[in-house]
């Protein structure tokens, strides 16, 4: 367990030492500050409070997709840089199984995505609070605010996992980012047929259930959570299969 912890630490160091590590966080800060100032100056009554602003902006229907683009483009490098630099060879001829190496990579990408969520959460809360006020409006609760953060993280995680699967498959950063974002763009796609509720896209945004209008009839929070778990399991399974079996040339 300790040696696997060190693998995780290695992955984090590789992210941390990369030039431009702070760039996505800086962009998030600009996004939060900019959107708060602009929205407040155009339509000051759009959000009742800083709480309302944070919840609205964090949702995939707010700026969640922009955060996703940052998260996907930063985290696929966890896999693809090893192929790009050729360090995959040194990495795989160690006394560790390929599965444990991929597990460390997936785990660190979930943590990395979590830092994006937390940072975005704080940035939007501070920016929203400064412009729209830190006092709670009617109907605002801490619980609701925190859930918005958790749901955004889940939304990011599912697409980051898909992008990582494509990264393992194609070994190319450009392809993984491009295809990952393309699939995420399809998130707003809607087909009014019963089968569509089994497709990934309508299930990714769990925040809609808090607002009380499910995307399709017959869908519940539990149903969507189950669907997400199945898709995540599938994507992770394919990644392991590809990573552990394939020849490295």
């Amino acid at each position, binding site marked *: 367990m300790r040696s696997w912890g060190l693998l995780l630490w290695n992955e984090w160091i*590789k992210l941390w030492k990369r030039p431009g590590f702070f760039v996505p966080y800086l962009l998030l800060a600009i996004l939060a500050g900019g959107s708060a100032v602009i929205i407040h100056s155009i339509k000051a009554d759009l959000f009742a409070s800083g709480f309302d602003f944070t919840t609205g902006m964090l949702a995939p229907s707010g700026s969640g997709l922009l955060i996703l683009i940052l998260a996907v483009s930063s985290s696929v490098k966890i896999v693809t840089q090893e192929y790009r*630099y050729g*360090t995959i060879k040194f990495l795989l001829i160690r*006394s*560790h199984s390929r599965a444990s190496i991929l597990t460390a990579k997936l785990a660190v990408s979930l943590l990395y995505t979590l830092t994006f969520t937390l940072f975005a959460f704080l940035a939007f809360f501070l920016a929203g609070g400064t412009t729209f006020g830190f006092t709670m409006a009617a109907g605002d609760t801490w619980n609701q605010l925190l859930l918005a953060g958790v749901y955004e993280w889940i939304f990011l995680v599912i697409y980051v996992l898909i992008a990582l699967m494509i990264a393992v498959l194609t070994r190319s950063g450009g392809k993984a980012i491009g295809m990952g974002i393309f699939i995420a763009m399809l998130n707003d796609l809607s087909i009014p047929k019963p089968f569509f509720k089994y497709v990934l896209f309508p299930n990714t945004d769990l925040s809609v259930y808090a607002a009380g209008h499910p995307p399709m009839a017959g869908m519940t929070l539990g149903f969507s959570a189950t669907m997400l778990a199945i898709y995540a399991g599938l994507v992770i399974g394919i990644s392991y299969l590809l990573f552990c*079996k394939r020849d490295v040339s």
Partner: protein
Amino acid sequence: MIGSNQGVSKAGIGQTPILRLEGVTKRIGSRAIVDHLSFEIGGGEVVGLLGPNGAGKTTTIRMIVGLIGMNEGDIYIAGQSVRANHAAAMKCVGGIIENPEFYPYMSGYDNLKQYQRMTPGVSEERMLEVIRLVGLTDAMGRKVKGYSLGMRQRLGIAQALLHRPKLLILDEPTNGLDPAGIREMREYLKRIATEEGISVLVSSHLLAEIELMCHRVVVIQEGKLVTVQSLAQEAKTTVGIHLELRVAAEHRELARGLLAMRKDVQLLEQAEGGSEGLAFSSLSGVQVGAPLFLQAAEAVIPELIAQLAAERVRIHRLEEHKVSLEDEFLKWTGGNRIA
């Protein structure tokens, strides 16, 4: 010098093989890239893996370290199966596969630290020791981006030696190095093999390099084992020295007769003629005969020269006839394609 063929494919110096390949086969589609390949490497041995382009050298090396899977057979490193127990087998191996590649944005120290963390039991002291061994102490704080190829090779060796492996695998270690770098590399390898007492498997297409570095060579072609040869130095002293003698054309038969009469000199028939074996006349019109090939012990040679001189045989050349690894290699692999 090329010595006698030491068995078929048994390990040399050490008795228990550090590396053992057993009928290893890799197929892509229906084509066998590596076809039932078996050989062994003993402890403390430096073995060269040779073969023409596309012979399967790189595939073999990648199979040994588990980067590529095999269809049949198995590979054992210090008794551990690469197929069944990859992690345990990799404990005993360090390697550079093709070029040494690092994270360019990190310092040499941070890069090495990555691999130190990946292996339990490698202390900070060991890391510094290895850095000293490869002579990179002053460069460790700099980013790898700014390293020369020679420095990256040395850092590659450092990462390979970190966990005190029993077997070092080097795929084209002198690729892209300048002559000074090649010599440096060779000296490192020799020092490592003696100081750390580890076996080395090295693939290279620079045959002269292999000749200087290795105890034995394993030659493969089209994925199959062609031959295993030992490059033993001792063969020279026991069997005698091969000499090539050129005398004036009109004295050739006389010299030949004198040599044939001596019991301590063996006349050799040169099977393959080649252009070097022919008689020639120099620009000034001196006729020089075709060479005579002979084998004699060290002590006999001065007597031999004295005798020839006394018989007034005009000696133009008396040279040690070295069979280079290149000549042998071309013979084994049937010629026209250079490794």
